[in-house]
């Protein structure tokens, strides 16, 4: 894994796809090329209440990336200093091997340049001290990004507060 995390707080995600569009805008991509995607599951009724999940799928920046091993030219590579997996367009010959190698279909074909593009955690932006495009623009701020040690504990926080306000309060009565 890279030394970064990308977290999505599902409870706040509204499946609006703004993150996807920001990603494409930042990279200037044509229709059809989608380095990240939000997959909606549901709505379905659970105990009479409709619920849906929205799963944010960028590249996972794997520890032993299939895409890198598969790439014949060395274009697909893992950045030494932080483990970001990215594609060097000077070396990419457009053979698409990485696209089939990745179990999640994360690398994308860009027909305009005849090469592969993929989520690179917006490394130009993070090198400039900014957050990735998707994280910056996300409508509800449900995406967060950072170095692993600073990972927020949203879910535990929320759980603790829920306990305190319901069960906790009941207990006090």
């Amino acid at each position, binding site marked *: 894994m890279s030394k970064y995390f990308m977290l999505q707080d599902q409870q*706040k995600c509204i499946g609006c796809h*703004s993150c996807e569009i920001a990603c494409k*805008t930042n990279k200037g991509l044509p*229709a059809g090329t989608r380095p990240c995607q939000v997959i909606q599951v*549901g709505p379905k009724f659970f105990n009479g209440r409709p619920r849906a999940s929205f799963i944010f799928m960028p590249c996972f920046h794997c520890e032993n990336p299939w895409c890198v091993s598969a790439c014949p030219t060395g274009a697909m590579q893992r950045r030494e200093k932080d483990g970001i997996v990215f594609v060097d367009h000077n070396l990419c010959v457009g053979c698409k091997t990485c696209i089939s190698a990745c179990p999640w279909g994360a690398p994308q074909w860009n027909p305009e340049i005849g090469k592969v593009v993929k989520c690179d955690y917006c490394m130009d932006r993070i090198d400039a001290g900014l957050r990735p495009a998707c994280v910056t*623009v996300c409508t*509800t701020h449900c995406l967060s990004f950072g170095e692993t040690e600073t990972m927020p504990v949203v879910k535990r926080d929320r759980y603790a*507060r829920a306990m305190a306000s319901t069960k906790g309060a009941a207990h006090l009565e």
Partner: protein
Amino acid sequence: MEKEVYSLCFMCSVRCPIRVLVKDGQVKWIEGNPQVAGMEGSLCPRGSAGISLLYDDQRVKSPMIRVGERGSGHWRKASWDEALDYVGDKLKDIIEKHGGHSVVLGERTQLATHVSKTFLKAIKSPNHFTHDALCKGSVNTACRSLFGYTDAQMSMDYKNTKHIVMYGRNLFEALEVKPVNNLMVALEKGAKLTYIDPRVTITATKANRYWMIRPGTDLALNYALIHVILKERLYDAAYVDRWVQGMPELQDFIHPYTPEWAEKETGIAANGIVDLARELSQDKPSVIFHFGYRGANHPNEIYMRRSVMILNSLMGSMEAPGGYFFKKGPGEEGGKPARKLTEQEFPKIEVPRFDKVGTPDFPLPDPNHGVGQMLPRAILDEDPYPIKALIAYRFDPLMSIPDTSLTKKALDKLDLVVAIDINYSDIAWYSDVILPESTYLERTDSIQQANGLKPQMFLRKQAVEPRYDTRDGAVILKQIGERLGIGNYFPFENMDELVAWQLEGTGFTMEDFAEKGFVAYGKKQIFWDRKTGIKFKTPSGKIEFKSSLLEDAGFESFPAYEPMPSPPDGQFRLVVGRNALHTHCSTQNNPYLNELCSENELWINEKKAEKLGIGNGDMVEVKSNKGSGKIVAKVTELIHPESVFMFHGFGHEAEKAARSYKKGINDALLMDNISDMIGGSPAMHETFVTVKPV
């Protein structure tokens, strides 16, 4: 060369503050203004797709003059001088023969609205209208009947609410960035969300309580809630004593509308209604019954919207933290608002409006907005007088006014149709001349007077030069005006000069906006004192449950409830709405937004679909007494069996907008053009349709 520009998004009318990065004359990045609370970088998907609009090569790139039949799509490119002369000559002729009032201008309310109003006033036409009535005319009238303020003069304190109730206000899908984030904060703090809609939306999936109500019966639900609240004295008694006029009348009226009665009408369990009333009462006054965004469903719309606001009033939530507040203007801080061109002196206008708003025929809708859906009949019947020309300014009557065939027939009767638009909208395609407007990234606009808890002003500032041969809307109107001899009403050569003129006397200059994109008159949030200081603008100075506005005009404050009929066997009530990816009918051709959502589907309940032999993904024909079309069926448990649903804004007919051309159906094609004749909204959920496999 790199620069940052603070400006305002205009992918929809919400106008979120943005920060734009420009490199070598190209827009490289747009994000929500990081210095504005609730934005902090965020943009909705449409806002994110702003650059995609800027570089869209299918928008209107130069003035166009029609050469074939109307709607035939045969155009020739024209220079600005030629196109403006063409429009000027035609208008001059029409005004000489038929008077200035034979010219109508319709637009989506926007920052340059004061310029369009000035244009019409100067030619002695009362016929300016905005899309507002089509969206929420009855909400406006309902609010004036109770508080003396329009809906636009109040807002909600989402961030501090403890319980919000929304009737089809699909807030997490029909997006405004700040409210979305503020409500998220409240939910995170434990606020409750009750969502009522015949269809499961994304908002429903975030709700603590979701009710699939029988379509069209929200009013019955509200009457039952009021019934319980009065019977169990769950209201804010001190607030109601001080501020409400008409409690005894409401008491008498509400008597028969029990939860058990409402259960039969709405399909919602009586004990659920009682529970909701009790729960809300515990959180008062920090509760919000949302008055809706589009309030245009049924002919009795005004009474539905009044019932919502009566509930808020009973909870004491008007002017309460976590409830509603009235927007405070610069005057509250001893400041002055930006000037508007409409403050000039104009010749007197003697004739009524085309829609008769303000006459005994149609007394109550807001004349500041008019009632746009009256236009087709006014043209066809020449009642109150012949209308000869329409200027459609980023407003599409063919998609926004119910019954497209009727609207087309009316347009056919006009001598001149001019479209001021960015895209090849359907009305642009059906016009005689298209005057292309620059996108929001390519132009400076008039000042936004942002009244609220803290009065502020925002500025939309040009980020880049126009990419094509397009101009600012306000400048286009001025240049037509010059050809009609009314140029003196437009004391500016360009937008910077207009903004400077607007700012005179406010103590601010354009440079003051450079750093953050806005200026504030004061620092603190202003709430009036809820015990003594709420400045209701009704004649009584109170909240008028018993409304002088209504009763003086001959309408009842509390008419008896009329049951909402179920559709006849084999038919469905057509219900329409929005999703996160499109703004009304204006973004379907945007490359990025179109990629994610290119056509609409017909949602139909799975049990009904099975009976009709319709499978998910099948092509079906949907038909009303006004029109029909083919659309893909989405078979689902997520919609009430009495209704079918489609997203608004699809089925475009402009060939040059190729991505959206003939994709899906235009809902207006199916709808009947009928209205709430008290409040002013069209009744968009009054159409029954049949659905059959093809």
